């Protein structure tokens, strides 16, 4: 039953599991350095207040305390504020005001973790309370309190405006459309909540003047550059190491104040300093996701031809714009909100505002806001189906971009690379037994009272991942390319160094498979090095499903460059012209043979030895068998999928049970089927979590109501079904092996399927829409005709 492919793509057990199943993972908090100190952060208990005074004397007198640092102390060194990935700034420690509950106010460095926490209790902060801005809809009211008075000239809580599409063209279509459906759709604030919280160990070596930062980062190279620019430490004197990471999901993309605290603490004390956030700190203060209030409109003919989609988005970015998205895309890739449909016109305007809530915005496997975009269009299409009394599947089929239309340029300018949407939808219907499900539903409804309310929800998504082309995309001026460095050793084994970093995605396995496939090696003979800026080439890291589309392409191209060189060397060894050789892996390993004479040639291992060994090499060929690539993608890749969710709702308690979930994903060529499926399972679970239970809410004072895993509910093994998956493969034309990336597909595609299923179940109650999270109380309210937004 356990099969490992001798080389190349296919199901292969993961190399990294050897250490993980033994408890020998190397997470940041596992690090124990000699003389290491521990850091704890004092956080604001309130959402909005002026800091009147901070008294640290008692904390400093604690026998185990080595340093107590406030914003005023950082300000003296010019370190009180740091840039965010979206060009705003964020307080490292509050100097003037606190702007959200949980904001960093001071930190303590002490001999041990408990003493550091003890000392926090000894710090006395006097706050002068200010009116908090909590309701996103009132953030721009003239009488709303001003949050960002740190920005000269700022008079309101406006963050940015953004638009895409053609407003006039959309208006013309809407004006003449036979059918228009409008709905406010709220995608509430949620949190990625990886099982490992964020943390860092900073070790500043005063002799070498070099900083080593082990941190929970998905983007070690970008963090190094940012830290250098901000802290003034030359970039070659910073080493960022991202060791094993206990899940990221976008939560570990931003540079957090805690990382900077640890660095400052280490510089001040001359000793290594560890900071590990607890779960409450993670939930209340680190990067949230979503928080969009979307006014959606869809226009169609009476025959169901979708003509246009339009939306206005009110985006809550919290106190600081901590979004991590390419610079020209302040709303992320929300622009793909036209979904998988061939329509005439589209327009979206967005207003982003500040509130007294934690910063963040792009996280939780959203593919830069595509989760919000897919939710918008897939709810609207379902509501249109209800309005027209059409089956939601046939309506989608009628409007899909046809396979012969690819590459397809959407009305908002995105060039969809390839797709076969009807094929994926058909497969999902077949796995689900869709007609039988509808028949069962009709039967149950006919039976009436006492029956569970059965709902069938459909969603179809198209993603845009693999950011991104240099001409369009950068973060803080850094192009979104990724590097790969490949070295083949004399004995024919290899090491590949990549700029992306794994948080569970299995890079140590899949990148070995990529190289093995290209060079005819066994994946066990390829070591993957990642997560350490001192030993890997530059690149922007792992998020936005970009590892395979960008870094994976770099790895393949590096291997092909090595193979090209190997061919020259082999030709020399065999005394034939390079073109007379053919490459094959049919005999269990890579080899060059004289064309038409199998077995006449040399193996890749023999070539490697010659490349490093004695004897002449062909003219112009250097020794060694290495290659280095920095890959800049020409286009994004566009994975897609068809999802069907079946729910049963208890009419007495309004509890939603997900009975079945069918997911057909097309992410192009799959490197390791097992790993792809695993990522889909995880994403589907996220979707059920967001749709049914996860919610970062706030009371009117700005207190976070989702500040622990007792309040922020994430699915357990009991809330999710056995996933039923299916595969279609439409290769990506611009990627060297046709792969598209899959890490976020299911998280993006599944929430509307679940919500559509719940609304379908509630159709007998006349429910048209209800916002997430569809908790029993909120479903109950909807059943009573009192559906209301979550805030």
């Amino acid at each position, binding site marked *: 039953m356990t099969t490992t492919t001798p080389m190349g793509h296919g199901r292969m057990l993961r190399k990294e599991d050897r250490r993980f*199943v*033994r408890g020998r993972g190397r997470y940041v908090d596992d690090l124990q350095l000699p003389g290491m100190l521990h850091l704890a952060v004092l956080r604001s208990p309130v959402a909005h207040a002026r800091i009147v005074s901070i008294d640290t004397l008692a904390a400093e007198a604690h026998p185990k305390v080595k340093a107590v640092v406030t914003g005023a102390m950082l300000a003296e060194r010019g370190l009180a504020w740091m840039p965010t990935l979206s060009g705003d700034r964020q307080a490292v420690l509050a100097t003037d005001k606190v702007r959200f509950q949980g904001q960093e106010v001071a930190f303590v460095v002490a001999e041990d973790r408990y003493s550091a926490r003890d000392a926090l209790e000894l710090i006395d902060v006097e706050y002068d309370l200010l009116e908090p801005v909590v309701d996103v809809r009132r953030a721009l009211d003239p009488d709303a309190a001003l949050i960002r008075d740190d920005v000269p000239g700022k008079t309101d809580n406006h963050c940015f405006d953004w638009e895409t599409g053609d407003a006039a063209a959309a208006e013309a279509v809407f004006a003449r459309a036979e059918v228009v459906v409008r709905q406010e759709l709220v995608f509430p604030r949620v949190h990625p909540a990886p099982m490992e919280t964020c943390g860092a160990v900073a070790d500043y070596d005063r002799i070498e003047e070099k900083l080593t930062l082990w941190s929970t980062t998905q983007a070690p190279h970008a963090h190094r550059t940012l830290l250098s620019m901000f802290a003034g430490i030359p970039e070659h004197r910073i080493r960022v190491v991202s060791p094993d990471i206990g899940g990221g999901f976008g939560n570990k993309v931003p540079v957090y104040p805690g990382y900077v605290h640890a660095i400052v603490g280490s510089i001040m004390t001359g000793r290594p300093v560890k900071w590990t956030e607890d779960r409450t700190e993670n939930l209340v203060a680190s990067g949230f996701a979503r928080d969009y209030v979307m006014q959606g409109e869809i226009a169609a003919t009476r025959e169901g031809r979708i003509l246009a989609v339009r939306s206005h988005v009110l985006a809550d970015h919290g106190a600081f714009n901590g979004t991590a998205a390419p610079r020209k895309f302040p709303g992320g890739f929300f622009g793909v909100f036209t979904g998988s449909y061939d329509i005439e016109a589209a327009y979206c305007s967005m207003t982003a505002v500040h509130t007294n809530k934690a910063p963040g915005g792009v996280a939780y496997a959203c593919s830069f806001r595509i989760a919000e975009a897919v939710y918008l269009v897939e709810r609207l299409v379902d509501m249109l189906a209800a309005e027209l009394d059409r089956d939601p599947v046939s309506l989608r089929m009628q409007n899909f971009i046809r396979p012969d239309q690819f590459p397809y340029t959407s009305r908002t300018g995105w060039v969809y690379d390839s797709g076969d949407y009807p094929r994926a939808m058909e497969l999902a219907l077949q796995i689900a037994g869709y007609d039988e499900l509808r028949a069962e539903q009709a039967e149950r409804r006919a039976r009436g009272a006492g029956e569970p309310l059965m709902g069938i929800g459909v969603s179809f998504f198209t993603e845009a991942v693999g950011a991104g082309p240099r001409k369009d995309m950068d973060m803080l001026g850094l192009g979104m390319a990724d590097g790969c460095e490949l070295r083949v050793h004399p004995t024919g084994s290899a090491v590949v160094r990549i700029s992306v970093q794994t948080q569970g*995605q299995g890079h140590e396995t899949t990148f070995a498979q990529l190289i093995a496939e290209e060079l005819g090696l066994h994946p066990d003979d390829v070591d993957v090095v990642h997560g350490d800026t001192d030993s890997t080439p530059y690149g922007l890291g792992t998020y936005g499903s970009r590892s395979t589309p960008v870094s994976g392409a770099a790895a393949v191209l590096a291997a092909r460059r090595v193979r090209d060189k190997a061919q020259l060397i082999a030709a020399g060894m065999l005394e034939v012209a390079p073109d007379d050789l053919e490459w094959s892996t049919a005999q269990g390993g890579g080899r060059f043979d004289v064309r038409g004479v199998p077995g006449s040639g040399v193996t890749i291992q023999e070539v490697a030895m010659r490349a490093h060994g004695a004897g002449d090499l062909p003219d112009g060929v250097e020794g060694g068998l290495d290659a280095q690539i920095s890959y800049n993608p020409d286009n994004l890749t566009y994975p897609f999928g068809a999802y069907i969710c079946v729910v049963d709702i208890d009419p007495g308690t309004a509890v939603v049970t997900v009975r079945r979930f069918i997911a057909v994903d097309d992410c192009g060529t799959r490197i390791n089927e097992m790993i792809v499926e695993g990522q889909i399972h995880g*994403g589907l*679970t996220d979707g059920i979590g967001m749709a049914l239970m996860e919610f970062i809410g706030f009371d009117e004072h700005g207190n976070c109501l989702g500040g622990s895993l007792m309040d922020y509910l994430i699915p*357990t093994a009991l809330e999710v079904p*056995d996933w039923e998956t299916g595969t279609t493969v439409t290769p990506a034309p611009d990627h060297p092996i046709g792969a598209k990336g899959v890490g976020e597909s299911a998280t993006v595609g599944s929430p509307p399927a679940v919500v559509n299923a719940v609304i379908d179940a509630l159709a007998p109650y006349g429910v048209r829409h209800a916002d997430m999270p569809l908790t029993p109380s909120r479903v109950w309210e909807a059943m009573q005709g009192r559906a209301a937004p979550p805030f």
Partner: protein
Amino acid sequence: MTSLFEEVPATADADADVPVRRVTVTLNGERRAADVEPRLLLAHLLRQGFRLTGTHTGCDTTNCGACTVLVDGLPVKSCTMLAVQADGHDVTTVEGLAGPSGLHPLQEGFKDEHGLQCGFCTPGMMLAAKALLEENPDPTEDEVRFALSGNLCRCTGYQNIVKAVLWAAKRMNGSEQ
């Protein structure tokens, strides 16, 4: 005494007003002792005191189960148990799961069925599963899901974890080799 807990030094420390208690446990079959503050959590004694970092802490509120260990064979969330409460008891962590001959069937099952991705929840999952299989060697899928419902995972969607536990159950029952 085989190990001092570095973060909470022993009585020799100048900080005389911090009370310490001697804790002796049988840890993965070996007798270990440490002098600890009474407030010290078992998870922290294991991780920093005994340097067994396979026990992870993910939530501080007994929800996530990443810190699950076995105390006298029963699954316990070690972030919610004081180290002193473990005094005199038998503690098993992930590091003690395998015998000298290699991997425990649960470890093999998690590898073979792809029951882990980031690996952070994995030790707790395996120990919770071990307790289940000792009580119920032939569980149904529903029983496995119920037994693991105190352990959260953000990566796998649970399906392959359930398969891994069922795989191990079969292997341990000798019904599949």
